[in-house]
């Protein structure tokens, strides 16, 4: 081996990153070449000095200071309106007061009817405009919808992968299924729909996990308008999942819906068994511990016990997490606001629509004219008779006078 090669391998050798052959050759070279040996010693010296540097302790008050700083952060709750916060708080109050009231379903129906009525009267909130026209706004909202959808999918998959293990305690349900749902809705009044969803969620004993609302500005007929588009993730008790899914569905026009269930029964049985085995192991270790005599024995048992204990803890920690996922289903909702007045204006605005309307108008006019003429004629009959009579008599009188005049003259 040449000195150059040895120099290059030196660092890898220190990190034990050499294969067997290189390692042996390097060691051989070092034992033969005093120059390289010297270099090697220096390098080892430097590295070992670095390695033995103890870690500095955190400065005093580090955690406290950080805690304060963290609390002062305005968390980037992506454009979270104060309205929603207020809405959620209000919803929780409602739940706190009215929890357990039997008229749950009825009240929902009433509320959603009200939602519709108010929606018809609602006016566009004035917002600074940026988007050029409605077509743009529509395109944007569609894109956004797709994006949300795929994100949700990814999120769910990540979710599934993350919960590698858990245990399950309930003896009644044999199957453990994690339910997920996705709904894309078009609603006429966004705020009411959102409040309604929040209310239903908390009334069912669930919670809003995430809520994001975007304002989309656009210009139509020279007016600046804005619509809202929101993504809400709610967690609701699994047994109420179907009902709530349907209720929310009925709040607007469904653009897209999707329900999925992930069966984790087999995985959790595995973990359950493993955890139980570990517990048995733990108790036998404890027994051993009482019999241990030398310090060495005690230490070894303790290490093993520690390992077992940690594993059990990890599993029981996972337990709550998985139970949580099974008990509370996840429902992602995408709300798109659609203004009724806008719909009317853009619905039949093509050439054929115009021609069709023109044609109908023309026919209506013609029919109207004929009708009016007929009515006029019928109404006029008495006058015509009277006028005709007068005219006739007058004609006769004039004729007679003329005749009489001629006779007199001759």
């Amino acid at each position, binding site marked *: 081996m040449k000195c150059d090669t040895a*120099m290059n391998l030196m660092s890898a050798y220190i990190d034990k*990153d050499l294969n067997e052959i290189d390692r042996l050759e390097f060691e051989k070279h070092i034992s033969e070449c005093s120059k390289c040996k010297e270099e090697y010693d*220096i390098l080892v010296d430097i590295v070992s*000095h670095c*390695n033995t*540097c103890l870690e500095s302790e955190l400065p005093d008050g580090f*955690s406290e200071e950080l805690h304060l700083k*963290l609390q002062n*952060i305005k968390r980037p709750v992506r454009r979270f309106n104060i309205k929603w916060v207020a809405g959620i708080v209000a919803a929780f109050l409602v739940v706190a007061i009215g929890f357990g009231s039997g008229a749950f379903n009825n009240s929902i129906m009433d509320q959603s009817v009200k939602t519709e009525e108010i929606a018809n009267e609602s006016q566009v909130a004035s917002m600074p405009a940026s988007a050029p026209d409605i077509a743009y706004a529509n395109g944007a909202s569609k894109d956004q919808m797709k994006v949300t959808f795929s994100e949700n999918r990814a999120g769910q998959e*990540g979710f599934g992968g993350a919960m590698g293990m858990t245990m399950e305690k309930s003896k009644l349900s044999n199957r453990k299924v994690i339910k997920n749902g996705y709904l894309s809705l078009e609603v006429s009044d966004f705020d009411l729909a959102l409040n309604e969803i929040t209310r239903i969620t908390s009334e069912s004993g669930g919670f809003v996990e995430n809520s994001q609302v975007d304002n989309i500005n656009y210009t139509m007929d020279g007016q600046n308008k804005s619509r809202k588009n929101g993504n809400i993730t709610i967690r609701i008790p699994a047994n109420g999942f179907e009902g709530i899914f349907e209720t929310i569905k009925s709040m607007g026009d469904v653009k897209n819906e999707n329900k999925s269930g992930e069966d984790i029964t087999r995985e959790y049985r595995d973990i359950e068994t493993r955890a139980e085995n570990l517990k048995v192991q733990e108790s036998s270790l404890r027994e051993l511990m009482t019999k241990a005599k030398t310090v060495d024995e005690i230490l070894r048992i303790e290490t093993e016990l520690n390992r077992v204990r940690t594993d059990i803890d990890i599993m029981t920690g996972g337990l709550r997490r998985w139970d949580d996922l099974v008990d509370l289903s996840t429902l992602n909702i995408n709300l798109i606001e659609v203004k009724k007045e806008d719909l009317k204006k853009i619905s039949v605005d093509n050439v054929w629509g115009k021609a069709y309307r023109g044609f109908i108008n023309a026919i209506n006019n013609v029919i109207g004219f004929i009708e009016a003429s007929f009515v006029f004629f019928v109404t006029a009959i008495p006058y015509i008779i009277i006028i005709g009579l007068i005219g006739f008599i007058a004609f006769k009188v004039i004729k007679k006078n003329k005749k009489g005049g001629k006779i007199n003259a001759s």
Partner: protein
Amino acid sequence: MNEIESLLIKKSKVGDIESFERLIESYQKRAYNIALRIMCNEEDAKDMAQEAFIRIYKSIKDFKEQSSFSTWLYRIVTNVCLDEMRRKKKIKTETIDTNYDEASCDKGTPENVYEINEKRQQIMKAINELNEDYKTVIILRDIQGFSYEEISNILDCSIGTVKSRINRGRNILKDKLSIMLELTNKKSV
């Protein structure tokens, strides 16, 4: 990644400060030490470590759970520190506080404590004089003891790059320090 950690991450994503603090508890010290080595000054290191944690807290929502949380955390810490160093270099207000590691290194026997500290200070100074790339890998590898793979994840470069940087960095260090070390070695003999 263990279950408890991913549970804490999940909670932190919703904004639970307490969970977040529990999550970073075990990484704080090491993060601070990385910052300390890069910044070479306790005050700055503290600020940068806190800055990094705040940034982590803010962006934990974007954290993909496929990669390891610790590497992600250390990556942010290193990046925050390196950014700050670059900024400082521009303003040129850099002051090197060479006394910082006396307390941080172990003491050894009373006879050679001075020498060891002296030597260590020299080494630290030399590391500090390295260029940014070499300095970072040496800190991560030799002082913090990360593996090649971890370093490549933290710095977001290939393992090959990490290896060659370490090799190169160590050689530069060796060349810089050889005279000084030889002298001290001879003295101690």
